[in-house]
């Protein structure tokens, strides 16, 4: 089980390195487009749409990564007054019945959506008209990473409840 969570955490961390570079690429493309349009009067027909794809893929691939640090905003008003053990039980309970099923449903239907798009080889409606099914597939992959990371965090928390060990300490430090 711990091997499984380690594997997932590692995989998400590695894909995040790649995803974070999408924003660098986006900056380069946007600035080049500004230069081409303003100084050379020769804008491209693809830059806006391409940057849109980069922007969307960037944050959707970050969902799992942020979850790794428990970085999605939560409000700790009441629960912090509970004992550590009760907090863990509450976490396991809400994750199993709320967070995980919701993200799993989204993930399944994201694949459903991506498959439909792939099957019909969907293109965008613009003049450039690139294939958009790869981006829809990335959306499904982004939700998959999120589901995997929630599962990993859940397993770690269960292990912590059951064992005396403290696998939560294995959460990597943020950069």
């Amino acid at each position: 089980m711990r091997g499984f969570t380690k594997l997932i955490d590692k995989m998400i961390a590695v894909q995040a390195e790649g995803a974070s570079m999408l924003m660098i690429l986006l900056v380069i493309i946007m600035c080049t487009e500004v230069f081409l349009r303003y100084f050379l009067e020769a804008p491209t027909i693809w830059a806006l749409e391409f940057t849109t794809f980069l922007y969307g893929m960037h944050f959707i691939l970050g969902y799992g990564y942020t979850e790794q640090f428990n970085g999605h905003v939560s409000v700790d008003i009441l629960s912090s007054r509970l004992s550590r053990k009760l907090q863990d039980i509450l976490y396991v309970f809400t994750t199993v019945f709320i967070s995980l099923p919701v993200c799993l449903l989204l993930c399944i239907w994201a694949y459903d959506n991506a498959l439909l798009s792939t099957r019909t080889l969907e293109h965008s409606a613009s003049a450039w008209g690139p294939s958009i099914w790869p981006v829809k597939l990335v959306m499904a992959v982004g939700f998959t990473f999120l589901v995997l990371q929630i599962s990993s965090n859940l397993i770690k928390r269960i292990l912590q409840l059951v064992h005396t060990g403290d696998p939560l300490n294995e959460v990597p430090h943020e950069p």
Partner: protein
Amino acid sequence: GTTLAKREKFGADKRHEKVAKLKVDTSDKKHRWKMVMPWSKGLLFYDLAVHFCDTVRLASGGRLIIKPFSAGELIPAMECFDAVAKGSFEAGHDWPGYWQGKDQAFTAFASVPYGLDSELYNIWLYEREGLEMMQELYGQYGLFVLPGGQVGQELGLASNRRAEKIEDFKGLKVRTAGWYMEILNNLGASAVATPGGEIYLSLQTGVLDAAEFSSPAVNWPMGFDEVTKYAIQPGVHQPACQFSFFFNKDAYDKLSDDLKWILDTAAKETQLWSYSWINNLNADAIRRFKDKIEIVRMDDEAIVEFAKTSHLYLEELKKQHAFLKKVLDSQEALKVDFRDWRSSRRGVTPWPIEDVIAGKLYE
């Protein structure tokens, strides 16, 4: 010897034969539908959708209530087609060209550069194979479709650079979308893709020289005249603007016969009303534009150049998209068949009478 052919009544309402003996099943069942669309509430197109929903509710005596939702309320603007196809909602309103990425042919049902005008769209859709082809296209996605309003010709470019001759369009940074982007680029202009919300500011600061959006009445609230000097006419990209209502096939099939007739009739009523409504507003809007900006006409040579470039572009597209070819050829055939009637009826354009007496005869 020769006998004179017997002259019969020239035409007949073909529908009458089909429906004369039709039994219409009615039902007391009540339906509550949701309609999604790409329009925000500020756009006049939203009113088209609302008008249709009103008619359906009243004509059905409340048995079919369709609630319209503007863009972003339930789903983002460009997702309404997929959402209705999927069955998340029962009905949608659109400008078919938005779905060009699914099939280039959709745009042919919306507006084509130098394509059909409103009159010919009506003839093509209702009296020729137009609606049938449209049904075939939408049917592939599990949708039933009806023509859903038209607003006629659009305004040309809102521009800060005066452009009359074809050379003037060289390097002109124009915001537009779809086919027209490539056509403008082929003419030497610089087509720029700009999100709708950033057009105004981009015109104001000079990121853009010009922008194309919609018909005068629809453009008026956008206020582009506040940040541009000219309207470059005519709107060669879009001699008409045709909309459609589309329905999830499963939901549509569950309707009783009379409700289906009501949908059909209400869509036709919307088609009639929208044209009259918007063009009456257009007449007012263009007068207001004239007070604020200069209306510039591109010269005939430029218009011909635009036509040639558009034609070449569409011929290329037709080679790659079989169904688009079928649809555009069918539309072109109507233009050809209509040629003699169009030319013989010329000369009685309804200009004000003193203009006609002064010799202004043609459109």
